[in-house]
């Protein structure tokens, strides 16, 4: 109860601060914050999967990539406007997550992890291979159409465009978590077998959570593409599947807004460390081990509490 209150207060304060920061920050820091906000959407979506239904997916890079390409391809090939392109991205994320979920959610924990990882690895290979569609490693870049007459090339518009989606995503997800659905998710996390015997079709609710999570992954992918005006097959990289786990673990799983802390810390870390150290990923690996160590009690208590 108390913890919930703290997280909510943290979220509201953060949103207020973010609303102000857009105006006062210098441009370099502003674009970093835009990135943090986009990844926060990704992380919140991922938390629905990991933190609320205890599904540790290693396949979320697929949804990020699907959203990114859904957006950029509909802008490039079909000349769609920004909002329709965003719609296409969400549909793409939905379809990918639904199909992947149909295969994966009924698998046992270890199979789920491995199979999601395999599927996203295969899609990464395919994306690298199908250069005619994806541009491969070089990627695709394009000009982004304006939204309601405002150009995203204006950094303020870009900032508040992303901020708007962060706000809406947070409100929607918070509402869902506070709704009966959220409580069903938590009961499944706490003891899937008991929930099953209370009349809930576990597979169906895990699938709902997985798809929900995939759609927000795709939204993040689309926003990232629109901000960078670029997408590449690298968005399907395994690295993008590991990041959300790390974000959620740092910030605390099952808290929705807690992962924002994880995103902010990791983004700052990446921003500053990768500038002076080429083997940034080495430190990333070490960091993962340290995070597991430091948050061990929380983590273990968390995973241990699930029958």
């Amino acid at each position: 109860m108390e913890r919930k209150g703290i997280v909510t207060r943290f979220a509201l304060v953060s949103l207020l601060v973010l609303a102000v920061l857009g105006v006062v920050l210098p441009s370099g820091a502003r674009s970093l914050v835009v990135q943090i906000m986009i990844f926060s959407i990704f992380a919140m979506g991922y938390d629905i999967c990991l933190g609320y239904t205890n599904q540790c997916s290693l396949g979320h890079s697929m949804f990020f990539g699907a959203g990114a390409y859904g957006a950029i391809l509909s802008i490039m090939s079909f000349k769609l406007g920004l909002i329709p392109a965003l719609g296409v991205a969400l549909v793409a994320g939905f379809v990918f997550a639904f199909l992947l979920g149909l295969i994966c959610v009924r698998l046992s924990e270890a199979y789920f992890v491995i199979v999601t990882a395999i599927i996203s690895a295969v899609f990464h290979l395919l994306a690298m291979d199908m250069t005619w569609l994806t541009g491969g490693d070089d990627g695709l870049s394009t000009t982004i159409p304006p939204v309601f007459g405002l150009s995203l090339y204006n950094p303020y518009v870009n900032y508040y465009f992303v901020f708007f989606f962060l706000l809406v995503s947070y409100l929607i997800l918070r509402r869902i978590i506070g709704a009966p659905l959220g409580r069903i998710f938590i009961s499944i996390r706490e003891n899937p077998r008991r929930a099953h015997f209370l009349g809930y079709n576990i597979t169906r609710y895990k699938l709902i959570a997985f798809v929900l999570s995939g759609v927000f992954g795709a939204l993040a992918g689309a926003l990232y593409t629109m901000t960078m005006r670029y997408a590449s097959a690298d968005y399907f990289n395994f690295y993008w599947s590991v990041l959300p786990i790390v974000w959620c673990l740092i910030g605390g799983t099952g808290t929705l807004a807690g992962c924002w802390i994880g995103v902010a810390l990791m983004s700052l870390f990446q921003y500053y460390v990768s500038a002076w150290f080429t083997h940034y990923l080495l430190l990333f690996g070490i960091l993962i081990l340290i995070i597991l160590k430091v948050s061990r009690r929380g983590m273990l208590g968390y995973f241990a509490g699930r029958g």
Partner: protein
Amino acid sequence: MSGSLLEVTGVSMHFGGLTAVDNVTYTIRSGEVRGIIGPNGAGKTTLFNAITGDLKPSSGKVYLKGEDITGLSPDLICQKGMSRTFQLTYVFPEMTVYECVWVGVYSKARRASTMFFSQADRLKDVADKTMELCRLVGLEEKRDELASNLSYGDQKVLEIAMALSTEPALLLLDEPTQGVGPQEADGIVQLIELLSQRMSILLIEHNIDIILRVCHNLTVLSFGRVIADGSCEEIGRNEEVQRIYLGDITCS
């Protein structure tokens, strides 16, 4: 209301070469409280699992209210009016008592229109029923405690409340007083007696005194087979049962 509520006909469970439940048949009438007794490893819990959808029976049929439910999944069987508790406590550790019961109540009141965006705590009918159940089992005061913080006995009571929350016509209790101190056990037995006036109950229990206090009829299992079936008096007179299991038995 009369007639059979649950019919178990010729149910067997094989695991590899092992037969855990062997051709078990019995019937529960509406309003009946039936005990299942038998030595450890007689297949009592396996039988529960085979009835409630946890395991698919190797052979045989299970009918609930005349409807064939053999091999259905646990969620469907629960929705059709059969609910159970577990031998080891089986609650939602990081949810409050109120929320644990609430999830079960909502299972019955589930609607697509309220599922996604209504605020869970503002659903008045669900809240009322949840409170009523908490009151019924005596956990009203502790409703905001985390389930994992409850005493073992209270967790057992919470389990019963959760099983009740889906409004079952038939309640299956798997050793509800196991590992509970005598005082708390007495509370649980009183609760079962109260419930027996409202619904049919199938009870696995080791404590013969409790069995005799609440049950009308008994089914005795040994090595997976039914060796006796009848009222408490009949079972008490059955020589095979006395020899195998009971020693002496008198009906109160």
